[in-house]
């Protein structure tokens, strides 16, 4: 357990010392969302209709961008071997890595989203819904994505491959989350969608660390 705590502490410290790691996805998030009014239509009425979906697609892409580095350094500098030799449960370690990833990407994305909501003319009623959907939805992105990151950690140019593997699996999250924001904007109930997201979060907390642990072991036989 102490190893898990130490890993969490070390990764947070690394993120603190190297702010680009969590700042770059945030800037990317901002820029991607800013492209939509430029490319499609800056009319506020139109923007408010697509705001939830655009913000969610932006968050999803930003998460994918930051996932690539999740296990890369650990595989290259031998930390992974030390983990495996330590006998500590890989399940907990995979969970801890996903948690740190969420703290460094999902949480800042959630906190920055209201600013983007303003830019996208998000309806006033939708802010709470958007924050809730991001708070519950982005941990799923981190957990599912960490499986892909573990699978592609030893592959050259794994970033693009990671997106190919993981994007189809993000679809349910995207559907429910964007629909929650949209419904919140119309003043309708959206607790069902948030409930589904919560169920998916519970499922992925339980299952994805198994897949990540199995995938991490592959990087040794390479």
């Amino acid at each position, binding site marked *: 357990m102490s190893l898990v705590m130490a890993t969490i502490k070390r990764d947070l410290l690394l993120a603190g010392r190297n702010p680009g790691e969590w700042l770059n996805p945030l800037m990317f998030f901002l820029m991607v969302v800013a492209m939509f009014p430029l490319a499609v239509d800056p009319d506020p009425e139109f923007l408010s209709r697509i705001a939830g979906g655009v913000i969610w697609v932006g968050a999803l892409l930003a998460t994918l961008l930051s996932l690539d580095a999740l296990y890369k350094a650990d595989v290259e500098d031998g930390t992974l071997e030390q983990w495996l030799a330590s006998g500590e449960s890989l399940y907990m370690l995979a969970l801890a890595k996903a948690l740190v990833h969420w703290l460094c990407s999902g949480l800042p994305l959630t906190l920055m989203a209201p600013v983007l909501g303003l830019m996208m003319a998000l309806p006033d009623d939708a802010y709470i819904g958007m924050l809730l959907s991001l708070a519950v939805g982005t941990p799923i992105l981190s957990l*599912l994505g960490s*499986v892909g990151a573990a*699978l*592609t950690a*030893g*592959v050259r140019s*794994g970033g693009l*491959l990671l997106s*190919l*593997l*993981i*994007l*189809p*699996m993000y*679809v*349910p999250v995207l*559907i*429910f989350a964007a*629909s929650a924001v949209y419904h919140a904007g119309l003043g309708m109930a959206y607790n069902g969608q948030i409930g*589904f997201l919560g169920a*998916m979060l519970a499922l992925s907390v339980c*299952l*994805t660390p198994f*897949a990540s642990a*199995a*995938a991490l072991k*592959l*990087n040794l*036989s*390479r």
Partner: protein
Amino acid sequence: MWQWIVRLYHRLGSPKWFYELTSKWIFWLALLSVVGCVVGLVLGLLYAPADYQQGNSFRIIYIHVPAALVAQSAFIMMAVAGAVFLIWKMKMAAWVARAIAPIGASFCLIALLTGAIWGKPTWGTWWVWDARLTSMLLLLFLYFGVMALQRAIESEEASHKGAAILALVGLVNIPIIKYSVEWWNTLHQPATLKLTEKPSMHPDMLLPLLIMILTTYVLFALLVILRTRNEILWHERKRSWVQALPEMLGGGR
């Protein structure tokens, strides 16, 4: 019975046994798929009555539905074979899983293409974001992911295992994707463009469809067996029984 299954399982693990067993099957499987295809298509295209709404354009169902069914079953089979490999380290299972991936993706593509061709006269457009079309598209993406991962990982053992893990994660995800897409679709566009509800098909229409479904499964089995045999030959090429094969077939040097 149980012991028989265990023995069969252990034998299946032997590439040589599988290769020799399937040598006898290929001819019959090929014959069955040709005959089934001819009978099913002749019955379906010439003798089945035209649909009361869609006229003759519905006849593409005899390609479309079997391909879609096989594409979905193939993913399950690939994931199960991958799980067998992960749990019992049975190499044959990994080769079978690798053999299935491109075949399953091809059937998925066939289903999507025939769906688009069918959509043009029926809906007036090549593509709609119908729930079933969308979930087939996502299934194709999952196949692409598995195949891309297989190609990307250099170590053979690791690429088999990685693909198996991804296929299993995908298998858990498929029902979630399917139902979320259905839910999304019913939300956005209420049943305007649904696949015409099957009004309990006329037997003359149904029989060719059943024949075609069975035939497509036979064809799928044949293709998987052929590709698996190639994998076996490649991996066992240094073994004496493979090197003896050309002489047995009358070739020699």
